[in-house]
């Protein structure tokens, strides 16, 4: 295994790979800094770009975007009280008051340092967690996979948000969408309605681009024309001072606490950066010596929020890469990118692609100091991005979406699919249906169905295999525990 690690490191330490990470981070911060473009959306739109690069460059590029956007989102949060990405909402609370006091520059610097540290922490956690799980890879046969995937599906129950029926319906829709295409076991065509494009199923990339990016654009378009076509008013960077060492040191513990919270929450499949951020913020406030400052311009508040949301960047990948269960929206998209590059996330990922994965880990870690550097040097540039009018941005985003869904398979049918899922996603979001269950169900169900049928064929129809094989049994028990916990914690939705 050591030789695989060394090989991976040598693949990673090339100028091309490192510059791809740098480009990704730059793109991520830029996109994150634009209010109305979330990191999820940017990743979805840029995934197709990564297809044309080798996996050791394309994936770090996307991961760079993921990292960069979590920091970039804090910039408009601080300057114009608008989160650039949803997880940056908590940063508005303390960042904007600081900017109003003329301390925008130091606030952004605090955000930068906290983001970098939080991210590094979770990257290390990812690396440490991945390896032991990878060692178990070969023990997973169809029966074990099914148990694992069932557990993945039950995790959905904990992400249903406020309305359980809506969350369940969302998951069921994902299930049905996933059923379109050729059935692996019998070769039957399901729900293709004669369209050739659908025989391979509804593509992950067009679906995600539509659901996350196009629907988001549509929601932005709802704003009044006067808002879309004017430049937003922004607080000034000028005159601010740099963050002092003393102020930074005071927030040390907060940053660490938030990093841990972000990593744990992020590692739970289905939860995203937003949840992690608020939990981190809340915990910091409770533990702080000056809780009354929170919400009025506390550096600790900024640190807590940013460290937590950046920690999610690495932690998201833990269940995604090791178990093949997406940790969140962006992770689902990244999973699609992995699959498209021929890397199959899940227990066998390291078995098959050891050096590639270690290269990717190396680049993940290298990305953090790069982000720090870019943040230091380029903050004025990013600050100006904040002021671009949405009326100009929106057509560019749509163009990216169209191009992205096209180059997936050189097929305009995929672009139509993206547009349709965009409409679908728009309706679902307006009616408060959560999208996370849909995506998770869509990804997991075809695999679960296949594993189930394979296991049945192998055992000649004996259902008890799932309970007699130890690994499978373990995951099924885990699934049951998760289900019970989530039902117990949920306030009952009274239907009487």
């Amino acid at each position, binding site marked *: 295994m050591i030789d695989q690690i060394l090989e991976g490191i040598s693949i990673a330490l090339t100028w091309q790979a490192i510059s791809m990470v740098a480009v990704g981070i730059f793109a991520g911060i830029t996109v994150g800094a634009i209010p109305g473009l979330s990191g999820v959306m940017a990743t979805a739109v840029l995934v197709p*770009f990564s297809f*044309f*690069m080798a996996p050791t460059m394309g994936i770090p590029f996307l991961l760079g975007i993921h990292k960069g956007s979590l920091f970039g989102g804090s910039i408009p949060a601080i300057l114009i009280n608008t989160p650039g990405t949803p997880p940056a909402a908590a940063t508005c609370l303390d960042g904007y008051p600081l900017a109003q006091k003329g301390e925008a520059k130091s606030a952004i610097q605090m955000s930068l340092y906290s983001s970098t540290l939080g991210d590094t922490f979770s990257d290390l956690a990812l690396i440490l967690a991945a390896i032991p799980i990878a060692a178990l890879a070969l023990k997973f046969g169809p029966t074990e996979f099914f148990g694992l995937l069932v557990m993945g599906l039950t995790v959905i129950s904990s992400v249903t948000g406020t*309305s359980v*029926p809506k969350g*369940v*319906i969302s998951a*069921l*829709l994902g*299930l*049905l969408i996933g*059923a379109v295409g050729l*059935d692996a*076991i*019998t*070769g*039957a*065509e*399901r*729900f*293709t309605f004669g369209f050739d494009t659908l025989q391979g199923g509804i593509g992950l990339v067009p679906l995600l681009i539509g659901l996350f990016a196009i629907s988001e654009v*549509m929601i932005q*378009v*709802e*704003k*009044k*024309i006067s808002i*879309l*076509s004017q430049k937003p008013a922004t607080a000034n960077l000028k005159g601010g001072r740099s963050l002092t060492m003393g102020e930074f040191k005071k927030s040390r513990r907060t940053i660490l606490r938030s990093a841990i919270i972000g990593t744990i929450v992020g590692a739970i499949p289905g939860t995203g950066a937003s949840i992690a951020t608020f939990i981190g913020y809340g915990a910091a406030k409770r533990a702080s010596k000056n809780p009354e400052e929170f919400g009025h311009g506390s550096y600790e508040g900024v640190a807590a929020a940013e460290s937590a949301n950046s920690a999610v960047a690495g932690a998201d990948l833990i269940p995604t890469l090791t178990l093949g269960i997406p940790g969140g929206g962006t992770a689902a998209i990244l999973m699609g990118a992995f699959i498209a590059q021929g890397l199959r996330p899940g227990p066998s990922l390291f078995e098959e692609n050891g050096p590639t994965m270690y290269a990717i880990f190396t680049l993940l870690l290298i990305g953090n100091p790069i982000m720090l550097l870019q943040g230091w040097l380029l903050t004025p540039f990013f600050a100006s991005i904040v002021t671009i*009018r949405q*009326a*100009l941005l*929106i*057509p*560019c985003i*749509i*163009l*990216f979406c*169209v*191009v992205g869904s*096209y*180059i997936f398979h050189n097929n*305009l049918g995929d*672009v*139509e699919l993206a*547009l349709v899922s965009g*409409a679908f996603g728009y*309706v679902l979001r*307006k*009616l408060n249906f959560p999208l996370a269950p849909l995506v998770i169900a869509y990804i997991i*169900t075809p695999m679960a*169905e296949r594993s*189930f*049928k394979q296991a*049945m064929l192998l055992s000649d*129809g004996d259902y008890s295999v799932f309970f007699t094989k130890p690994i499978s049994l373990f995951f099924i028990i885990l699934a049951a525990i998760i289900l019970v916990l989530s039902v117990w914690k949920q306030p009952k*939705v*009274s*239907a*009487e």
Partner: protein
Amino acid sequence: MRVGTISISVFFVLFSLVGYFYIIPAHIVTSIPIDASTPAVLHPDFFPRYTVVVLGLVSLVLLFSAIKDTSPEIPEPDRASARFRVGVVFVLTYLFIVGLKYFGFTLVAPLYMSVIIFFLGVRDWRYIISMALIFPVALSYSFWYSFSVIFPEGEIFLK
């Protein structure tokens, strides 16, 4: 939103019925005849059928809870024109895709960009021209140069 939730739950209930009785039997096509001895679980229609049943049931639950829900509605200002804008953008984007198929990217993309930018309120023609021309051209050129990827060329030009 209450009206919206009610209508969509009704839609899902109907969808489940149509799905169970029509779509599933009619649109699952097998090319090798399935052995009569294979247990029902292995048939291609097993999972979809039960999914659709559960969907119908849960939609009914949602329907009832939406009807009972008497909490105050958050007013959405300016709804009609918002929906109008969304609709227009959708239609324009669809036309864009059709245009791509026949006329290719280099012609249609700048046209589409200019229309949308104009529609969204920017009137200064300098911005419109520069964004609409430079951005698509830069995009397709950089894709060609760095990844050797060709954007749609338009059927009327290929034959």
